[in-house]
């Protein structure tokens, strides 16, 4: 386990050095919080960057107050390709959306000058596939991600977080695009499912293939998020650690979404989740956080758990 030490983060921070000093705590679910704050079914999350700026700002604040070191911008679906795939998204300018999304997160940090906080410029999948599954072209994907990363950079992101990728090829195009756009660090998370023969992406990529490829392509940290609940992520963390010495990040889901009396809740409690995150940390994680279904309450419990572990 690493010792907790105070580190000062500046514009050109050294992610590797930071990760050597402590386990970095990322925030939790964004969609979960937006729905809780009243996101309607015909709205896309990114529209709140314009229409409900205050509420979005408050979500970032709540995660920082809960103890997150890193907050993720509300730009998961803000690549040009993804935005253009929906009516609501096509109305938003990709560059403006990413710039503003990053600026809102940056603004939230201003309230906590005594803390070392970072903004992760969030980049999600295009929602489309390369052949033979779909007809997405590699250079189109890369350009779309490059445009997104450049705007996130301009808006004040400290580094890029490419996440929930179910195709290693798309993750690589996003990584290349981000590197073309900026010299800031790039973190890449794929999403794996547990199959009888091990952990695989939807496309069949293995942990080993992912680790080797992303290291070769120059990722600064790699990891897994979404799909798996925290208890299933423990085994994945162990196997991925056995494959690589790279810094690792894990952000599981809070179990599965269940609708009861018209309200969504997830099957895992913050307590159980934090307990599992503690185990993931012991397996050699360098950074942790939450994905779907996790809230500031989860992050608060994880922060307590990490402090316990550091003692």
């Amino acid at each position, binding site marked *: 386990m690493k010792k907790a030490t105070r580190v000062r983060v500046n514009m050109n921070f050294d992610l590797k050095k930071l990760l050597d000093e402590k386990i970095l705590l990322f925030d939790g679910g964004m969609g979960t919080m937006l*729905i809780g704050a009243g*996101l*309607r*079914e*015909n709205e896309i999350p990114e529209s709140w960057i314009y229409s409900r700026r205050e509420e979005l700002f408050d979500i970032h604040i709540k995660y920082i107050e809960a103890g997150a070191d890193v907050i993720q911008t509300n730009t998961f679906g803000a690549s040009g390709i993804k935005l253009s*795939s*929906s*009516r609501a998204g096509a109305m938003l300018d990709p560059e403006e959306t990413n710039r503003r999304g990053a600026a809102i997160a940056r603004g939230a940090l201003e309230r906590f000058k005594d803390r070392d906080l970072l903004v992760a410029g969030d980049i999600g999948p295009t*929602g489309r*596939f390369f052949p*033979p*599954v779909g007809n997405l072209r590699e250079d189109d994907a890369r350009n779309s991600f490059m445009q997104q990363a450049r705007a996130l950079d301009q808006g004040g992101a400290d580094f890029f977080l490419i996440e929930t990728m179910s195709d290693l090829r798309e993750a690589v195009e996003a990584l290349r695009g981000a590197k073309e756009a900026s010299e800031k660090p790039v973190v890449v998370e794929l999403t794996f499912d547990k*199959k*009888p*023969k*091990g952990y*695989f*992406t*939807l*496309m*069949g990529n293995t942990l080993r293939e992912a680790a080797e490829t992303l290291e070769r392509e120059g990722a600064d940290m790699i990891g897994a998020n979404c799909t798996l609940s925290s208890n299933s992520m423990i085994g994945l963390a162990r196997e991925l650690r056995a494959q690589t010495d790279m810094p690792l990040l894990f952000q599981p889901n809070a179990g*599965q*979404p*269940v*609708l009861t009396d*018209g309200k*969504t809740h997830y099957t895992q409690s913050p307590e159980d989740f934090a307990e599992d995150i503690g185990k993931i940390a012991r397996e050699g994680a360098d950074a942790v956080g939450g994905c779907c279904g996790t809230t500031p309450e989860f992050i608060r419990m994880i922060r307590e758990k990490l402090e316990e572990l550091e003692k």
Partner: protein
Amino acid sequence: MMQFYEKCRKAVIEGDSDLALKLATEAIDKNKPVLDVIEKGFVKGIEEVGRLWEDGTFFLPELVMGAEAVKKALSLLNPILSDQQTKGFEKGKVVIGTVEGDIHDIGKTLVATMLSASGFEVYDLGYDVGVDSFIEGADKWGVNCIASSALLTTTMQKQRGIIEKLKEQGIRNKYTVIVGGAPCSRKWADEIGADGYAKDAVSAVALVGKLISGD
């Protein structure tokens, strides 16, 4: 003959659309029993692809390529069957879509692909489909089954909406209604009064088969 069926089966497992098309042409040219070629050859292939998907040997690319190979073969063979007025292969008609407010359509498209590769006539309405469009489509094409997908707990209420609307119009019993998508479950299907739930594309094929053609 078994050897020929085996070739057809293999072409699907290997995801070889060109070979599947070639074999379908050969079947027609040589007057082979078309229904058997489909059922003992191509469909056996897609069933095997489904099995390999479930046990984690095959992934999305292999599933899609296998389904495409069957669809290519069927595009030639199905018209012959209807010319011969052969009954027996057409398993039923399904209208499918992702509900209104929801743009997640990867899983839904996969279900549509596997259903049509397995012999169902599928009408895919795409994503962000309103309740009325499902019902109008079902009526227009005279389907047996209405299948809806929802990936969000906020949009899954629309699946209930489809059933309520059918009841309102007094035509609930006219259709088999099934649901799918990440937040759905057997319990959800029961709660809203749907006829079934499937967790993925492979089990959706089995479910629709069981519900509408008694397979």
